[in-house]
């Protein structure tokens, strides 16, 4: 067992809620008042498969669960599951709903090594590498002489069509680094 601070929860973490293990599907932090924050968590009970939403103060402590983990690569989608494969070509299916928060980055043939977590030998969650590289399919062109002072703009990723804010100099076809924990653009590679 380990301690997880609510503020640090992210998709794929497994914690104990009401005595039962749950896997975090999504954790969103919102600032409330006087520099405090609350964390809204969507989680799936690993015993009942029931999905529910709960909320915590950002500094609440939760009981984490040490789970078996394996490095895998994404293989393909077979509705309703995503399939990951390890070095020995064992396939592991994880239902799309559980990792719905990651689907914006999952593409066929992706090379990044992901970490698959198992609960009683059952694959239950995936954590992507902190940094991934994706191609920009569309973004507004940079206008010469633009003095509006805008330092960011929206870009659409190839394949997943996910939208995120990127620096104003990013162009269509650029490869960019994205931080999967924060969802933020980090830098342009090309």
């Amino acid at each position: 067992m380990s301690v997880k601070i609510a503020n640090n929860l992210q998709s794929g973490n497994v914690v104990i809620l009401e005595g039962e293990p749950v896997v975090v599907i999504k954790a969103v932090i919102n600032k409330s008042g006087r520099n405090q924050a609350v964390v809204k968590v969507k989680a799936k009970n690993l015993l009942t498969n029931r999905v529910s939403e709960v909320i915590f103060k950002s500094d609440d402590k939760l009981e984490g669960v040490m789970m078996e983990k394996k490095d895998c690569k994404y293989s393909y989608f077979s509705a309703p599951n995503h399939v990951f494969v390890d070095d020995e070509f064992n396939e592991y299916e994880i239902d799309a709903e559980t990792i719905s928060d990651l689907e914006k980055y999952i593409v066929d043939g992706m090379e990044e090594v992901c970490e698959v977590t198992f609960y009683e030998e059952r694959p239950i969650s995936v954590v992507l590498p902190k940094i991934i590289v994706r191609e920009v399919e569309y973004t507004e062109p940079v206008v010469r002489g633009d003095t509006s002072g805008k330092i960011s703009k929206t870009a659409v990723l190839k394949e997943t069509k996910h939208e995120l804010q990127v620096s104003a100099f990013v162009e269509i076809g650029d490869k960019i680094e994205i931080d999967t924990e924060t969802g933020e653009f980090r830098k342009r590679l090309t």
Partner: protein
Amino acid sequence: MQNNISRWDIFCTVIDNYGDIGVCWRLARQLADEYDADIRLWVDNLDSFSHLCPTIVTDADVQHLEGMQIRRWRPDFPTVDVADIVIEAFACELPASYVEAMAERKIAPIWINLEYLSAEDWVDDSHLLASPHKHHPLKKHFFFPGFTPTTGGLIRERDLLSVRSAFDESDADKFLAGLGVPPRDGTEIRVSLFCYDNAMLPELLQEWADGPDRIRVLVTPGAPARQVGDWLGEQLLPGTQLCRNKLTVQGLPFLSQSGYDRLLWACDINFVRGEDSFVRAQWAQRPFVWQIYPQTENTHLIKLEAFLTRYLQNFPESETVKRFWQRWNGSGEIGASWRDFVAVRASLELHTKVWVGQLDRTRNLADNLVRFVFGK
């Protein structure tokens, strides 16, 4: 209210002098008055409380007031019976021994964390979500005040708006005369001032002094009176009246909550801060200017924007109001934006009445709280 479970413990830690206890005291009184709730209010700082309620004995561990039990919340928390409904205000940490006692009850109490007020959209999705306790079979529900029917609403006593409507200009003069304020001098604009430390205040006072309108500023004690005194170069005590050109400032004594309500009703424009006075300024149905509690990373500006978006929807001069509020909460030249703001105050007052009518169609906070408790 069903009386089968009606004992309430409300816990309040005072962080900002009057905001936390202001909200808790209003809520406690409304629950007791209108819902027959048996209230025990735990407060860690009775000195701050005594400003709102001068009859409070600041060194008493237990006292009774307006049908409620007021308890001094000391670090060495006593052994007490756990109430049926437990409210921790603004995520204050309950005493560990009390939480243990909650867990030992046959029927777990209904445990509510009364959160801060915000107009942001995420509040609607977070209102009433449960928070399971790490060790005990207890669940706390997060109760978010707000401006929409899917939040916990705002504190609004049952007769507040009717009493407000009946309060006319002669009542205002009578009330202000009791504070030593002379009858309105022609077109004089009456302003109430309640704010945190605010770097924009000296420039605004100068604008008022040099501007075309006669302005009387009624200054609340504490940070506002201190800052105005600094600008004047002399102390502004309650009852003192000082003039600089077109500006007259007058120090006020500390007012009770009901007295402060009447001050808001009697003034033409109200400067308010934090949460409690911000809500009361809306019920006053007068143009108001909000200084939001400043937070790190400018989080407060997002919250300010969220409120302005809701409040100023369909108001044609929304940009004028927005600009002045933003200046009051930040930086930049405030004089011109004041002149623009004051020029739209008549239409803003009408708009504020419409806004309040809209809020009045949603249930108030105490009502929502009671419905949640008894719907459980």
